[in-house]
Protein backbone atom coordinates (compact mmCIF):
# COMPACT_ATOMS: atom_id res chain seq x y z
CA UNK A 1 0.00 0.00 0.00
CA UNK A 2 2.64 2.52 1.05
CA UNK A 3 4.58 1.55 -2.10
CA UNK A 4 1.79 2.60 -4.44
CA UNK A 5 0.96 5.96 -2.78
CA UNK A 6 4.06 7.83 -4.01
CA UNK A 7 3.30 6.59 -7.52
CA UNK A 8 -0.24 7.93 -7.37
CA UNK A 9 1.09 11.25 -6.13
CA UNK A 10 3.67 11.33 -8.92
CA UNK A 11 1.13 10.49 -11.63
CA UNK A 12 -1.28 13.21 -10.45
CA UNK A 13 1.45 15.86 -10.28
CA UNK A 14 3.07 14.87 -13.59
CA UNK A 15 -0.34 14.80 -15.27
CA UNK A 16 -1.10 18.28 -13.98
CA UNK A 17 2.29 19.57 -15.16
CA UNK A 18 1.75 18.09 -18.62
CA UNK A 19 -1.74 19.55 -18.78
CA UNK A 20 -0.41 22.99 -17.87
CA UNK A 21 2.36 22.86 -20.47
CA UNK A 22 0.35 24.34 -23.40
CA UNK A 23 -0.85 27.27 -21.27
CA UNK A 24 2.66 27.89 -19.97
CA UNK A 25 3.99 27.96 -23.54
CA UNK A 26 1.30 30.53 -24.37
CA UNK A 27 2.52 32.57 -21.40
CA UNK A 28 -0.57 32.02 -19.22
CA UNK A 29 0.53 31.76 -15.60
CA UNK A 30 3.78 29.88 -16.18
CA UNK A 31 4.23 29.82 -12.38
CA UNK A 32 1.51 27.21 -12.22
CA UNK A 33 3.35 24.91 -14.62
CA UNK A 34 6.47 25.48 -12.53
CA UNK A 35 4.56 24.55 -9.35
CA UNK A 36 3.44 21.24 -10.83
CA UNK A 37 6.94 20.64 -12.24
CA UNK A 38 8.42 21.08 -8.75
CA UNK A 39 5.74 18.80 -7.33
CA UNK A 40 6.62 16.21 -9.96
CA UNK A 41 10.29 16.48 -9.03
CA UNK A 42 9.34 15.97 -5.38
CA UNK A 43 7.25 12.98 -6.41
CA UNK A 44 10.15 11.43 -8.29
CA UNK A 45 12.47 11.88 -5.29
CA UNK A 46 9.91 10.11 -3.08
CA UNK A 47 10.20 6.86 -5.05
CA UNK A 48 12.93 4.49 -3.99
CA UNK A 49 14.31 3.52 -7.40
CA UNK A 50 14.70 7.12 -8.58
CA UNK A 51 15.89 8.33 -5.19
CA UNK A 52 18.78 5.87 -4.98
CA UNK A 53 20.01 6.78 -8.46
CA UNK A 54 19.76 10.54 -7.92
CA UNK A 55 21.23 10.45 -4.44
CA UNK A 56 24.02 8.25 -5.75
CA UNK A 57 24.88 11.02 -8.20
CA UNK A 58 24.93 13.50 -5.30
CA UNK A 59 27.39 11.45 -3.25
CA UNK A 60 25.09 8.83 -1.76
CA UNK A 61 24.74 10.49 1.65
CA UNK A 62 21.09 11.54 1.40
CA UNK A 63 21.72 15.07 0.18
CA UNK A 64 18.89 14.30 -2.25
CA UNK A 65 16.54 14.19 0.71
CA UNK A 66 17.43 17.71 1.82
CA UNK A 67 16.98 18.82 -1.79
CA UNK A 68 13.58 17.12 -1.82
CA UNK A 69 12.49 18.93 1.35
CA UNK A 70 13.67 22.29 -0.06
CA UNK A 71 11.77 21.59 -3.30
CA UNK A 72 8.68 20.93 -1.23
CA UNK A 73 9.23 24.24 0.61
CA UNK A 74 9.46 26.07 -2.73
CA UNK A 75 6.35 24.32 -4.07
CA UNK A 76 4.14 25.12 -1.09
CA UNK A 77 5.47 28.70 -1.02
CA UNK A 78 4.56 29.28 -4.67
CA UNK A 79 1.15 27.66 -4.24
CA UNK A 80 0.46 29.73 -1.14
CA UNK A 81 1.37 32.99 -2.85
CA UNK A 82 -1.02 32.23 -5.71
CA UNK A 83 -3.79 31.08 -3.40
CA UNK A 84 -3.62 34.10 -1.09
CA UNK A 85 -3.69 36.45 -4.09
CA UNK A 86 -6.48 34.55 -5.80
CA UNK A 87 -8.68 34.10 -2.77
CA UNK A 88 -8.13 37.67 -1.68
CA UNK A 89 -6.45 37.12 1.68
CA UNK A 90 -3.97 39.96 2.23
CA UNK A 91 -3.27 38.91 5.84
CA UNK A 92 -2.38 35.37 4.83
CA UNK A 93 -0.34 36.77 1.96
CA UNK A 94 1.74 38.82 4.38
CA UNK A 95 2.20 35.83 6.66
CA UNK A 96 3.64 33.87 3.75
CA UNK A 97 5.27 36.23 1.26
CA UNK A 98 5.73 39.27 3.51
CA UNK A 99 8.65 39.85 5.87
CA UNK A 100 7.41 37.45 8.59
CA UNK A 101 6.67 34.79 6.00
CA UNK A 102 10.08 34.96 4.36
CA UNK A 103 11.69 34.94 7.81
CA UNK A 104 9.82 31.73 8.62
CA UNK A 105 10.93 30.19 5.33
CA UNK A 106 14.54 31.16 6.09
CA UNK A 107 14.41 29.83 9.66
CA UNK A 108 12.93 26.47 8.70
CA UNK A 109 15.26 26.01 5.72
CA UNK A 110 18.30 26.90 7.84
CA UNK A 111 17.15 24.59 10.62
CA UNK A 112 16.65 21.76 8.15
CA UNK A 113 20.10 22.11 6.63
CA UNK A 114 21.77 22.60 10.04
CA UNK A 115 20.19 19.49 11.54
CA UNK A 116 21.16 17.53 8.45
CA UNK A 117 24.79 18.70 8.69
CA UNK A 118 24.88 17.76 12.39
CA UNK A 119 23.87 14.20 11.54
CA UNK A 120 26.31 11.45 10.72
CA UNK A 121 26.21 10.68 6.99
CA UNK A 122 24.41 7.43 6.18
CA UNK A 123 23.84 5.39 3.07
CA UNK A 124 21.06 6.43 0.64
CA UNK A 125 17.66 5.56 2.02
CA UNK A 126 14.46 6.83 0.49
CA UNK A 127 12.31 9.00 2.78
CA UNK A 128 15.34 9.06 5.10
CA UNK A 129 14.05 5.81 6.50
CA UNK A 130 17.30 4.32 7.81
CA UNK A 131 18.93 7.57 8.93
CA UNK A 132 18.06 6.96 12.57
CA UNK A 133 19.74 3.56 12.53
CA UNK A 134 23.13 4.98 11.60
CA UNK A 135 23.96 6.23 15.08
CA UNK A 136 22.36 7.18 18.39
CA UNK A 137 23.12 10.81 17.62
CA UNK A 138 21.15 10.53 14.38
CA UNK A 139 18.23 8.90 16.12
CA UNK A 140 18.11 11.81 18.56
CA UNK A 141 18.35 14.41 15.80
CA UNK A 142 15.86 12.82 13.39
CA UNK A 143 12.69 14.20 15.06
CA UNK A 144 14.13 17.72 14.78
CA UNK A 145 14.88 17.15 11.11
CA UNK A 146 11.30 16.11 10.46
CA UNK A 147 9.92 18.90 12.63
CA UNK A 148 11.81 21.39 10.47
CA UNK A 149 10.75 19.65 7.26
CA UNK A 150 7.05 19.52 8.13
CA UNK A 151 6.97 22.64 10.32
CA UNK A 152 7.15 25.12 7.46
CA UNK A 153 4.45 23.25 5.51
CA UNK A 154 2.19 23.27 8.57
CA UNK A 155 2.86 26.98 9.12
CA UNK A 156 1.88 27.86 5.54
CA UNK A 157 -1.13 25.54 5.64
CA UNK A 158 -2.40 27.13 8.84
CA UNK A 159 -2.00 30.56 7.28
CA UNK A 160 -4.00 29.45 4.20
CA UNK A 161 -6.74 27.57 6.01
CA UNK A 162 -9.01 30.52 7.02
CA UNK A 163 -9.03 31.96 3.50
CA UNK A 164 -9.76 28.56 1.95
CA UNK A 165 -12.58 27.78 4.36
CA UNK A 166 -14.08 31.22 3.79
CA UNK A 167 -14.14 30.57 0.04
CA UNK A 168 -15.91 27.25 0.54
CA UNK A 169 -18.79 29.09 2.20
CA UNK A 170 -19.03 31.88 -0.37
CA UNK A 171 -21.32 31.73 -3.36
CA UNK A 172 -18.67 30.92 -5.94
CA UNK A 173 -19.07 28.34 -8.72
CA UNK A 174 -19.48 24.84 -7.21
CA UNK A 175 -16.26 23.54 -8.78
CA UNK A 176 -14.27 26.44 -7.35
CA UNK A 177 -15.74 25.81 -3.90
CA UNK A 178 -15.00 22.11 -4.13
CA UNK A 179 -11.47 23.00 -5.19
CA UNK A 180 -11.09 25.28 -2.18
CA UNK A 181 -12.46 22.51 0.06
CA UNK A 182 -9.93 20.01 -1.32
CA UNK A 183 -7.11 22.46 -0.74
CA UNK A 184 -8.39 23.04 2.79
CA UNK A 185 -8.31 19.26 3.26
CA UNK A 186 -4.74 19.34 1.97
CA UNK A 187 -3.89 22.02 4.55
CA UNK A 188 -5.45 19.96 7.35
CA UNK A 189 -3.57 16.85 6.20
CA UNK A 190 -0.32 18.82 6.17
CA UNK A 191 -0.82 19.98 9.75
CA UNK A 192 -1.83 16.43 10.71
CA UNK A 193 1.41 15.21 9.08
CA UNK A 194 3.40 17.41 11.45
CA UNK A 195 1.40 16.27 14.46
CA UNK A 196 1.98 12.63 13.49
CA UNK A 197 5.72 13.16 13.91
CA UNK A 198 5.06 13.48 17.64
CA UNK A 199 2.38 10.79 17.79
CA UNK A 200 2.83 7.37 19.39
CA UNK A 201 4.33 4.77 17.06
CA UNK A 202 1.07 2.88 16.57
CA UNK A 203 -0.27 5.89 14.67
CA UNK A 204 2.75 6.09 12.38
CA UNK A 205 1.27 3.57 9.93
CA UNK A 206 -1.16 6.19 8.64
CA UNK A 207 1.59 8.81 8.18
CA UNK A 208 2.37 7.95 4.52
CA UNK A 209 -1.30 8.10 3.63
CA UNK A 210 -1.71 11.46 5.36
CA UNK A 211 1.40 13.00 3.81
CA UNK A 212 0.70 11.77 0.28
CA UNK A 213 -2.94 12.67 0.77
CA UNK A 214 -1.92 16.27 1.48
CA UNK A 215 -0.16 16.50 -1.88
CA UNK A 216 -3.03 14.86 -3.76
CA UNK A 217 -5.60 17.13 -2.06
CA UNK A 218 -3.69 20.32 -2.87
CA UNK A 219 -3.07 19.25 -6.45
CA UNK A 220 -6.60 18.07 -7.18
CA UNK A 221 -7.95 21.28 -5.62
CA UNK A 222 -5.93 23.30 -8.11
CA UNK A 223 -7.08 21.03 -10.94
CA UNK A 224 -10.75 21.52 -10.00
CA UNK A 225 -10.42 25.30 -9.95
CA UNK A 226 -8.90 25.06 -13.38
CA UNK A 227 -11.69 22.76 -14.60
CA UNK A 228 -14.21 25.33 -13.32
CA UNK A 229 -12.62 27.87 -15.65
CA UNK A 230 -12.67 25.44 -18.56
CA UNK A 231 -16.34 24.72 -17.88
CA UNK A 232 -17.25 28.40 -17.62
CA UNK A 233 -15.40 29.16 -20.85
CA UNK A 234 -17.08 26.34 -22.78
CA UNK A 235 -20.50 27.14 -21.30
CA UNK A 236 -20.33 30.58 -22.90
CA UNK A 237 -21.96 32.65 -20.17
CA UNK A 238 -20.65 33.49 -16.73
CA UNK A 239 -23.11 31.22 -14.97
CA UNK A 240 -24.93 34.08 -13.29
CA UNK A 241 -28.11 34.38 -15.29
CA UNK A 242 -30.50 33.32 -12.52
CA UNK A 243 -32.06 36.78 -12.21
CA UNK A 244 -33.15 36.88 -15.81
CA UNK A 245 -36.90 37.66 -15.97
Amino acid at each position, binding site marked *: MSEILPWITLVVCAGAALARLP*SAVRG*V*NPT*LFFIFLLATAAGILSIEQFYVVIDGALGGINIAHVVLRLIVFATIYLIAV*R*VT*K*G*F*GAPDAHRMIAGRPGLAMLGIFAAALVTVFLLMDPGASSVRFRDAGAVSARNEALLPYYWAAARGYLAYVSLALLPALLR*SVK*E*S*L*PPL*VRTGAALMAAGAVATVAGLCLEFAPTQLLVVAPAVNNGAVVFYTSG*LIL*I*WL*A*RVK*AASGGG*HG*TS*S*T*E*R
Partner: protein
Amino acid sequence: MPLPAKAFQRWLNGVAPDTSTADICRVSGVKRTTLAQQLVRGKVAETTVVSISRAYNLNPVAALATFDTYSDLASSSLPPSDKELVSQIATVDLLRAVIVRTAPTGSTGTGSTGTESMDPRQPELSPPPHATSVKNWVDAIDDGELRHRVSTATGVAPQNYSAQLTANRLAPELAVATSRAAGVGLAGGLVATGLVTEAEAGWPRGARQAALDRLSDGDLAALSGERLQALGKTLRRQEQDQEQTERIWENLV
Protein backbone atom coordinates in the same frame (compact mmCIF):
# COMPACT_ATOMS: atom_id res chain seq x y z
CA MET B 1 -41.74 15.77 3.79
CA PRO B 2 -42.90 14.42 0.40
CA LEU B 3 -45.86 12.08 0.05
CA PRO B 4 -45.73 8.52 1.40
CA ALA B 5 -45.40 5.95 -1.41
CA LYS B 6 -48.25 3.83 -0.06
CA ALA B 7 -50.75 6.68 -0.15
CA PHE B 8 -49.46 7.56 -3.60
CA GLN B 9 -50.04 4.01 -4.89
CA ARG B 10 -53.56 4.10 -3.51
CA TRP B 11 -54.22 7.44 -5.18
CA LEU B 12 -52.71 6.24 -8.46
CA ASN B 13 -54.97 3.18 -8.40
CA GLY B 14 -57.97 5.46 -8.15
CA VAL B 15 -56.77 7.79 -10.91
CA ALA B 16 -55.50 5.27 -13.43
CA PRO B 17 -56.59 1.78 -12.52
CA ASP B 18 -55.03 -1.08 -14.50
CA THR B 19 -52.46 1.19 -16.08
CA SER B 20 -48.82 0.19 -16.14
CA THR B 21 -46.22 2.45 -14.59
CA ALA B 22 -44.59 2.73 -18.01
CA ASP B 23 -47.81 4.07 -19.53
CA ILE B 24 -48.33 6.52 -16.69
CA CYS B 25 -44.80 7.81 -17.15
CA ARG B 26 -45.24 8.12 -20.90
CA VAL B 27 -48.50 10.07 -20.58
CA SER B 28 -47.38 12.32 -17.73
CA GLY B 29 -43.81 12.95 -18.82
CA VAL B 30 -42.45 11.82 -15.44
CA LYS B 31 -39.13 10.04 -15.96
CA ARG B 32 -39.51 6.35 -15.27
CA THR B 33 -36.25 6.16 -13.31
CA THR B 34 -37.31 9.14 -11.20
CA LEU B 35 -40.63 7.58 -10.26
CA ALA B 36 -39.05 4.20 -9.55
CA GLN B 37 -36.50 5.86 -7.29
CA GLN B 38 -39.17 7.80 -5.42
CA LEU B 39 -41.22 4.64 -4.90
CA VAL B 40 -38.20 2.70 -3.64
CA ARG B 41 -37.39 5.44 -1.17
CA GLY B 42 -41.02 5.50 -0.06
CA LYS B 43 -41.32 9.24 -0.71
CA VAL B 44 -43.03 10.58 -3.80
CA ALA B 45 -42.43 14.19 -4.80
CA GLU B 46 -45.41 16.54 -5.09
CA THR B 47 -44.33 17.40 -8.65
CA THR B 48 -44.95 13.77 -9.63
CA VAL B 49 -48.54 13.94 -8.42
CA VAL B 50 -49.01 17.29 -10.19
CA SER B 51 -47.67 15.96 -13.51
CA ILE B 52 -49.78 12.80 -13.36
CA SER B 53 -52.97 14.60 -12.42
CA ARG B 54 -52.46 17.06 -15.30
CA ALA B 55 -52.04 14.12 -17.67
CA TYR B 56 -55.35 12.66 -16.50
CA ASN B 57 -57.17 16.03 -16.57
CA LEU B 58 -57.46 16.27 -12.82
CA ASN B 59 -56.94 19.45 -10.84
CA PRO B 60 -53.47 19.08 -9.24
CA VAL B 61 -54.49 21.02 -6.14
CA ALA B 62 -57.49 18.73 -5.63
CA ALA B 63 -55.22 15.74 -6.21
CA LEU B 64 -52.76 16.94 -3.58
CA ALA B 65 -55.68 17.48 -1.20
CA THR B 66 -56.38 13.74 -1.21
CA PHE B 67 -53.14 13.26 0.75
CA ASP B 68 -53.16 13.72 4.49
CA THR B 69 -50.47 16.42 4.50
CA TYR B 70 -52.51 18.57 2.16
CA SER B 71 -56.05 17.62 3.16
CA ASP B 72 -56.99 21.19 4.10
CA LEU B 73 -56.22 22.38 0.56
CA ALA B 74 -59.67 21.13 -0.42
CA SER B 75 -61.60 23.16 2.11
CA SER B 76 -59.69 26.36 1.48
CA SER B 77 -61.43 28.72 -0.89
CA LEU B 78 -60.05 32.10 0.18
CA PRO B 79 -59.40 34.18 -2.91
CA PRO B 80 -55.91 35.65 -3.28
CA SER B 81 -55.44 39.15 -1.90
CA ASP B 82 -54.37 42.01 -4.16
CA LYS B 83 -50.95 42.02 -2.52
CA GLU B 84 -50.48 38.33 -3.28
CA LEU B 85 -51.61 38.81 -6.85
CA VAL B 86 -49.27 41.73 -7.44
CA SER B 87 -46.39 39.83 -5.85
CA GLN B 88 -46.72 37.28 -8.65
CA ILE B 89 -46.18 39.86 -11.39
CA ALA B 90 -42.66 39.84 -12.75
CA THR B 91 -40.54 42.94 -12.17
CA VAL B 92 -40.27 43.55 -15.91
CA ASP B 93 -44.06 43.55 -16.21
CA LEU B 94 -44.35 46.05 -13.32
CA LEU B 95 -41.81 48.31 -15.00
CA ARG B 96 -43.69 48.03 -18.28
CA ALA B 97 -46.82 49.11 -16.45
CA VAL B 98 -44.96 52.11 -15.03
CA ILE B 99 -43.87 53.11 -18.51
CA VAL B 100 -47.32 52.63 -19.99
CA ARG B 101 -48.90 54.74 -17.25
CA THR B 102 -46.40 57.58 -17.31
CA ALA B 103 -45.85 57.88 -21.05
CA PRO B 104 -48.06 60.55 -22.62
CA THR B 105 -50.76 59.00 -24.77
CA GLY B 106 -49.80 58.38 -28.34
CA SER B 107 -46.06 58.11 -27.79
CA THR B 108 -45.96 54.79 -25.98
CA GLY B 109 -44.76 52.86 -29.01
CA THR B 110 -41.21 52.85 -30.25
CA GLY B 111 -42.24 54.90 -33.22
CA SER B 112 -42.27 52.08 -35.70
CA THR B 113 -45.67 51.92 -37.33
CA GLY B 114 -45.40 48.58 -39.08
CA THR B 115 -46.09 46.35 -36.04
CA GLU B 116 -49.68 46.37 -34.90
CA SER B 117 -49.59 43.00 -33.14
CA MET B 118 -48.41 44.56 -29.89
CA ASP B 119 -50.85 46.74 -28.05
CA PRO B 120 -48.77 48.64 -25.48
CA ARG B 121 -51.83 49.20 -23.30
CA GLN B 122 -52.45 45.53 -22.69
CA PRO B 123 -49.15 43.69 -22.50
CA GLU B 124 -49.72 40.09 -21.49
CA LEU B 125 -48.36 39.45 -17.98
CA SER B 126 -45.91 36.58 -17.96
CA PRO B 127 -47.25 33.64 -15.92
CA PRO B 128 -45.85 32.98 -12.45
CA PRO B 129 -43.38 32.04 -11.12
CA HIS B 130 -40.90 34.86 -11.79
CA ALA B 131 -37.28 35.18 -10.64
CA THR B 132 -38.14 36.35 -7.11
CA SER B 133 -41.75 35.19 -6.86
CA VAL B 134 -41.33 33.11 -3.70
CA LYS B 135 -39.71 35.84 -1.63
CA ASN B 136 -42.09 38.49 -2.99
CA TRP B 137 -45.06 36.31 -2.12
CA VAL B 138 -43.91 35.74 1.48
CA ASP B 139 -43.16 39.46 1.84
CA ALA B 140 -46.66 40.22 0.54
CA ILE B 141 -48.39 38.14 3.22
CA ASP B 142 -45.89 38.75 6.04
CA ASP B 143 -47.18 40.70 9.03
CA GLY B 144 -43.70 40.78 10.54
CA GLU B 145 -44.09 37.61 12.61
CA LEU B 146 -44.90 35.18 9.80
CA ARG B 147 -41.45 33.59 9.43
CA HIS B 148 -41.33 33.04 13.16
CA ARG B 149 -44.75 31.35 13.19
CA VAL B 150 -43.90 29.10 10.23
CA SER B 151 -40.70 28.08 11.94
CA THR B 152 -42.54 27.18 15.14
CA ALA B 153 -45.27 25.31 13.28
CA THR B 154 -42.97 23.27 11.04
CA GLY B 155 -39.77 23.03 13.04
CA VAL B 156 -37.76 24.37 10.10
CA ALA B 157 -34.95 26.67 11.25
CA PRO B 158 -35.48 30.32 10.22
CA GLN B 159 -32.16 30.48 8.40
CA ASN B 160 -33.04 27.40 6.32
CA TYR B 161 -36.39 28.95 5.50
CA SER B 162 -34.74 32.22 4.46
CA ALA B 163 -32.19 30.33 2.38
CA GLN B 164 -35.01 28.69 0.43
CA LEU B 165 -36.69 32.06 -0.18
CA THR B 166 -33.44 33.59 -1.39
CA ALA B 167 -32.99 30.68 -3.80
CA ASN B 168 -36.58 31.28 -5.00
CA ARG B 169 -37.60 27.83 -3.77
CA LEU B 170 -39.94 26.60 -1.08
CA ALA B 171 -40.88 23.00 -0.34
CA PRO B 172 -44.61 22.54 -1.12
CA GLU B 173 -45.36 21.53 2.45
CA LEU B 174 -43.64 24.68 3.73
CA ALA B 175 -45.46 26.80 1.16
CA VAL B 176 -48.82 25.53 2.42
CA ALA B 177 -47.69 25.93 6.04
CA THR B 178 -46.76 29.53 5.23
CA SER B 179 -50.22 30.23 3.78
CA ARG B 180 -51.81 28.60 6.81
CA ALA B 181 -49.75 30.70 9.23
CA ALA B 182 -50.60 33.85 7.30
CA GLY B 183 -54.31 33.03 7.06
CA VAL B 184 -54.46 33.38 3.28
CA GLY B 185 -55.62 31.01 0.52
CA LEU B 186 -53.63 27.79 0.91
CA ALA B 187 -52.67 27.29 -2.73
CA GLY B 188 -51.02 30.71 -3.12
CA GLY B 189 -47.57 29.44 -2.19
CA LEU B 190 -47.88 26.60 -4.67
CA VAL B 191 -48.44 29.18 -7.41
CA ALA B 192 -45.48 31.26 -6.25
CA THR B 193 -43.20 28.24 -6.30
CA GLY B 194 -44.47 27.26 -9.73
CA LEU B 195 -45.81 23.88 -8.63
CA VAL B 196 -49.30 24.71 -9.93
CA THR B 197 -50.59 27.43 -12.27
CA GLU B 198 -52.80 30.29 -11.11
CA ALA B 199 -55.79 28.75 -12.88
CA GLU B 200 -55.22 25.42 -11.13
CA ALA B 201 -55.10 27.22 -7.80
CA GLY B 202 -58.46 28.80 -8.54
CA TRP B 203 -57.20 32.32 -9.13
CA PRO B 204 -59.68 34.08 -11.43
CA ARG B 205 -58.53 34.78 -14.96
CA GLY B 206 -56.96 38.20 -15.26
CA ALA B 207 -56.90 38.63 -11.49
CA ARG B 208 -53.27 39.72 -11.48
CA GLN B 209 -53.87 42.26 -14.22
CA ALA B 210 -56.91 43.56 -12.36
CA ALA B 211 -54.93 43.89 -9.14
CA LEU B 212 -52.21 45.70 -11.03
CA ASP B 213 -54.77 48.09 -12.52
CA ARG B 214 -56.10 48.79 -9.02
CA LEU B 215 -52.65 49.89 -7.81
CA SER B 216 -52.35 53.66 -7.60
CA ASP B 217 -49.52 55.24 -9.59
CA GLY B 218 -47.72 55.99 -6.36
CA ASP B 219 -47.99 52.44 -5.04
CA LEU B 220 -46.91 51.02 -8.39
CA ALA B 221 -43.88 53.30 -8.55
CA ALA B 222 -42.91 52.52 -4.95
CA LEU B 223 -43.32 48.77 -5.45
CA SER B 224 -41.31 48.82 -8.67
CA GLY B 225 -38.65 50.80 -6.87
CA GLU B 226 -38.44 48.17 -4.12
CA ARG B 227 -38.17 45.41 -6.68
CA LEU B 228 -35.47 47.27 -8.60
CA GLN B 229 -33.52 47.89 -5.42
CA ALA B 230 -33.64 44.20 -4.50
CA LEU B 231 -32.66 43.28 -8.05
CA GLY B 232 -29.76 45.72 -7.91
CA LYS B 233 -28.53 44.15 -4.68
CA THR B 234 -28.70 40.64 -6.10
CA LEU B 235 -26.95 41.67 -9.30
CA ARG B 236 -24.24 43.52 -7.40
CA ARG B 237 -23.62 40.49 -5.22
CA GLN B 238 -23.37 38.32 -8.32
CA GLU B 239 -20.95 40.77 -9.88
CA GLN B 240 -18.80 40.68 -6.76
CA ASP B 241 -18.82 36.88 -6.77
CA GLN B 242 -17.92 36.93 -10.44
CA GLU B 243 -15.08 39.36 -9.78
CA GLN B 244 -13.75 37.13 -7.03
CA THR B 245 -13.97 34.07 -9.24
CA GLU B 246 -12.10 35.91 -11.98
CA ARG B 247 -9.38 36.84 -9.51
CA ILE B 248 -9.05 33.24 -8.38
CA TRP B 249 -8.74 32.11 -11.98
CA GLU B 250 -6.31 34.88 -12.84
CA ASN B 251 -3.98 33.60 -10.15
CA LEU B 252 -4.61 29.90 -10.14
CA VAL B 253 -5.40 29.02 -13.75
